[in-house]
């Protein structure tokens, strides 16, 4: 570098204009902070985001209380216990327990008192109805999968293994509708459990055994009707209020 070039270099540094002196350190720091503080979604959340086409909905799904590890472990333990008793006694306890366990999970999927930031969530662009439905479906799917695995492992007949899926749908819908309307998960659990108990007792009264609530074809239509009615109640309870203008 010649002396003239050096002089020019110094003049360039002193002159205003683009160059190292114009670096906006705040802007640089924000870029760094954005990378450092960025959360890496897990594989399940990434898959859910792709499936649902909404990273927000996927994130809301991952915060479902009844999909957290502790809850899933508790569900598994209950179903394993049911499986063990079924293997010992021959009574299909998994099928009798699974609807009530799933109903509790559904009632605790979304709502005030469960979601700490529920009011804030209700002011968000991702609608709370979508959050509720996605969470409810996910909880139902997981409980159905765990229940089917436990039921199959307990050596139950195919009619029993799959028979409780329809009553589980009805009981879950009842718990969801009650929890949504009353905005209380506990009341939802109570309604779901009571509904299932009534179904079991009715099965006992009609057929002489509790398992009739699972195996009897006569119950299928009432279960489906109840599920449809409760589904309609949920849709009405979470509708967007009209007439504001």
């Amino acid at each position: 570098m010649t002396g003239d070039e050096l002089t020019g270099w110094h003049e360039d540094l002193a002159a205003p204009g683009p160059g190292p002196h114009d670096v906006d350190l705040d802007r640089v720091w924000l870029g760094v902070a954005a990378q450092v503080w960025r959360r890496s979604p897990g594989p399940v959340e990434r898959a859910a985001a792709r499936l649902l086409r909404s990273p927000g909905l996927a994130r809301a799904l991952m915060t479902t209380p009844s999909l957290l590890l502790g809850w899933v472990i508790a569900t598994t333990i209950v179903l394993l216990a049911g499986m063990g008793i079924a293997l010992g006694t021959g009574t299909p306890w998994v099928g009798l327990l699974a609807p009530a366990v799933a109903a509790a999970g559904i009632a605790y999927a979304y709502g005030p008192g469960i979601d700490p930031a529920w009011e804030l969530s209700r002011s968000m662009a991702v609608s709370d109805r979508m959050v509720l439905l996605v969470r409810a479906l996910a909880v139902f799917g997981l409980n159905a999968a765990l229940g089917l695995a436990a039921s199959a492992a307990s050596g139950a007949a195919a009619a029993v293994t799959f028979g409780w899926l329809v009553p589980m749908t009805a009981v879950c819908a009842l718990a969801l509708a009650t929890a949504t309307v009353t905005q209380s998960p506990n009341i939802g659990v109570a309604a779901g459990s009571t509904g299932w108990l009534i179904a079991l007792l009715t099965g006992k009264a009609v057929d002489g055994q509790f398992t009739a609530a699972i195996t009897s074809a006569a119950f299928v239509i009432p279960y489906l009707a109840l599920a449809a009615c409760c589904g309609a109640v949920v849709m009405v309870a979470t509708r967007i209020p009209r007439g504001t203008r």
Partner: protein
Amino acid sequence: MNVELTELHRKFGHVRAVAGVSLQAGPGVFGLLGPNGAGKTSLLRMMATVLPPTSGKLYLLDRDPGSYGPRREIRRRLGYLPQNLGYYPGFTVADFVEYFALLKDMPPRQVPRAVAAAIEHLGMGDKARAKLRTLSGGMLRRAGIAQAIVNEPELLLLDEPTAGLDPEQRVSFRALLRDFGQRSTVIVSTHLVEDVAAACTEVMLMDAGRIVFHGTPAELIARGEGHSVGDAPLERGYSAVLAAARS
């Protein structure tokens, strides 16, 4: 106008929380004052689209929140800090702000930078990775404000935002309000008249579900001349207007 309310009513059973509020608001910082139970929180919740009005007309950001599409668009451009901010104890501050940025439907690529900007704006950079359960009440309030501003909202609704903030934090928060008020409509419900005096361009005073005064802080001060109740001029104006409304 970002906010247009016409004869807005909200009842809870037989209790009338908001009784015929009409308001038009463009950019600026609007202070919402009033005693407990005056209807401030119910009014803010209706503007946040959390609570539907019993009757009346509500139009936000030139849209009707009664329909799904416009409502979603309003919510994308809305920032809301509720009075009781719930939080997920296991979330970090950055997780919390990011969660609501995603729920506001922000483009995912913009989210990390917007989260960092909101956290830095509130001076919480050193707490960004701290779990919410470890934070003080004032810090949680700031995290709540950070989630409210993360999407650079055109309508910012803040319910008691300065509760729990220390004096230094309140001063910097007022600067943030003034900054947002230049381009957005900011409505702040507060009990602290100093916040109103320092940051608000207009003041609304609510009592028994109605707006009983709407004007500038100077006009509210003028109403208090000759009134003896209250330590500060704005407090005297506040109590004078309330006394007149109730007489």
